[in-house]
């Protein structure tokens, strides 16, 4: 390495902040280069001054700092987990209430009659009559008869009563009674 090493590289070299291979190259060069040795000497001096000139804080200063810190911590904030505990307690109370409500609800479902008042009859209205139950009787199915064509008519007359025309159909179960009006009467021969 014949060219000078730049000052920034030497500034890293002086305190061992270079990678190993680069550090070796700079070391070889600075062994032979007086210019670089001069820069390295100045860098070492300034680094030495930097490291050793500034004083450490005194015990009195540290005690004052500690006292100020501890004096400024609010008393209510001493327990940083306090809010967690309060939240846990509140959650426990809510859970207890919920469990009680659920338990009571289950009891009400088990004993509905005991807790609900029995509804009495209305004071004014009469008691409802029992429904009329018609006994269901057996109705024999009548076989359907064939209706024969042809009708027979008979005039029924009675004193003081309107005349009827009785018409027998071919079906013995069907008889037609026709009330004859006055204007419909015809003179019988």
């Amino acid at each position: 390495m014949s060219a000078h090493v730049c000052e920034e590289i030497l500034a890293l070299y002086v305190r061992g902040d270079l990678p190993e291979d680069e550090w070796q190259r700079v070391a070889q060069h600075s062994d032979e280069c007086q210019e670089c040795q001069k820069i390295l000497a100045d860098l070492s001096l300034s680094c030495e001054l930097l490291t050793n000139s500034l004083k450490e804080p005194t015990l009195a200063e540290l005690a004052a700092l500690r006292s100020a810190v501890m004096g400024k911590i609010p008393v209510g904030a001493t327990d940083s987990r306090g809010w967690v505990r309060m939240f846990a307690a509140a959650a426990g109370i809510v859970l207890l209430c919920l469990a009680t409500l659920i338990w009571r609800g289950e009891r009400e479902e088990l004993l509905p009659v005991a807790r609900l008042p029995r509804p009495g009859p209305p004071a004014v209205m009469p008691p409802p009559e029992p429904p009329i139950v018609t006994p269901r009787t057996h109705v024999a199915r009548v076989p359907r008869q064939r209706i024969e064509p042809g009708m027979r008519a008979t005039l029924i007359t009675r004193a003081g009563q309107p005349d009827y025309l009785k018409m027998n159909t071919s079906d013995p179960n069907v008889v037609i009674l026709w009330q004859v009006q006055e204007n419909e009467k015809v003179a019988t021969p």
Partner: protein
Amino acid sequence: MEMAVSLMCQFTAEPESIRSLILEAKAGDLAAFEQIVTRYERIVFRVARRLLADPERARDAAQEVFLRLHGKLGKFQEEKDLAPWLYRMTVNLCHDLRRRSKPSVALDLAPALRDAVLDPEQAMELLQRQELIAAALEELSPREREAIVLRDLEGLSTADVARLLRPSEGTVRSQISTGRVKIKRFVMARLGRRP
């Protein structure tokens, strides 16, 4: 360098005791939270002071970091490491504070004057060195400053810094390199040497 190594170990592996402390603090144990503060107050305050260069604002920032930690304890997973979270919160808070107000240069010098062990010459020399470095840090961009503070002053690895600040490792390496060169040039110019 020993301090840096111990910090790296602290960053990568959180002891079991811290996890149990987090659990107790989550349950509301203020004494456990105070132990957590005691454990990390030095790191948080130191990073804040180096990023802000103002002890008053650094104390406010550190205080805010721990108050936010307390506020988020309920969501914090104790199996996660606390140190990266604290580093990230401190850096972000200080970044916001610096953006909102003008940076104050070299105000973090009073402890040197209060140090009774040093004789006047030593105190003056230390004061000058502190002033020099504080002014040099002010020359950096906010991201370069954060990378330098975490890498060179807190002793975190480049990979850890990249994980905290969320750019790529290459970007962090570039910020660290540029920051060191800027500090070197500033210091050499003040010391009357050729940059």
